[in-house]
C-alpha cells in the first residue's frame, strides 16, 4: 500500500470522527472550529520540533581539527610515494 493511501485513510478516519462529534453534545460552534485548532496545533508542533532540533543540533568542532591532522598525515604519506597532492 502506498504511503499516501495510508495518510488519506488516516485523514478519512479523523474526519469521520470529527463529523461524528458535530452531531453530538459538543456545541456546534466549537466542533466546527476543531479542524482549525488541529491544523494550527500541528503547525506549532512542527515549529517546536524544528526549534528544539536546532537548539540540540549536534556539532563537532573537534572533528575539523582531527580532519586537518588526517589531511596532513595523508599528504605526507602520498607525496613520498609519488602521488600528486600539491593541488589547492
Amino acid at each position, binding site marked *: 500500500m502506498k504511503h499516501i493511501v495510508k495518510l488519506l485513510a488516516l485523514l478519512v478516519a479523523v474526519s469521520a470522527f470529527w463529523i461524528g462529534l458535530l452531531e453530538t453534545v459538543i456545541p456546534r460552534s466549537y466542533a466546527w472550529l476543531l479542524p482549525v485548532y488541529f491544523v494550527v496545533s500541528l503547525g506549532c508542533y512542527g515549529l517546536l520540533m524544528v526549534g528544539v532540533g536546532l537548539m540540540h543540533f*549536534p556539532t563537532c568542532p573537534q572533528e575539523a581539527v582531527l580532519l586537518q591532522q588526517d589531511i596532513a598525515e595523508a599528504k605526507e604519506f602520498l607525496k613520498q610515494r609519488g602521488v600528486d597532492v600539491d593541488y589547492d
Partner: protein
Amino acid sequence: MEINKNKYSIIVPTYNERLNIALLVYLVFKHLRDVDFEVIVVDDGSPDGTQEVVKQLQQVYGEDRILLRARPRKLGLGTAYVHGLKHASGNFVVIMDADLSHHPKYLPSFIRKQLETGASIVTGTRYVKGGGVHGWNLMRKLTSRGANVLAQTLLWPGVSDLTGSFRLYRKSVLEDVISTCVSKGYVFQMEMIVRASRKRYHIEEVPITFVDRVYGSSKLGGSEIVEYLKGLAYLLVTT
C-alpha cells in the same frame, strides 16, 4: 572472533576531486585493515586531472584494490552508482562522498553494525548523539532541520537522516532498490532509503560526523529548496 569473509566495494563518484580522492583513499586504507575491500572511483570526465591522480594511487595500492571506472561527462549521481555496481565484486557496497565530509574512520562501525544485526542497510546519521556536523551556519542548520521535520511528518521513513549519503548496502539490496528509483541528486538519496524502508528491508543507523568540505567547490546550489519540496511530494505519492 569470527573472521569477516565479506568483501566490501566502496563506490565513490567524483567530479573535480583531484586532491580529495587521494586523501580519501589513504584514509580508507588506514582504517580498513584486515578487511577485504575495493574502491571504485566513478569519475565523470573531470577536467582537473582527477583520473591521473587515481592512476597514481593505483601504483601505490594496486589496480585490484582501486578501480577506475570513468564516464565521459557528468551523468548524475544515481547512474554513477549503477555504473559502479556493475563493476563491484564485493557482496556489500558502501557509497560515500569524495570530499571528506564522510570520514572513512566510520567504515569499521558500519561494518560492525551490519555484522551484529544482520541488517541489509546501514545508514550514517548526523542527527543523533555521537553524530554531528561542523561548518554549517545557522541558516543551513535551520533548513536541514526544517527539511527533516517535514520529511519525517509526511513520510514516516524510519530513519533519522534522510538525505545522508554515507551508507552500506548488501549488494543485492542495493541492486533491487536502485532499479526502482528515478530521482536525481540528493532527492535520489531520500528515495533510496524511503523505498528500502517501504520494502521492509532491515535498516540500521550509526552516528557519523560530517565536516563540511575543506577543498574544492560544493555541488550544493540555490534552487535546492524547490527541488526538495518537489521531491517530497513525489515520494509522498509514489512510495
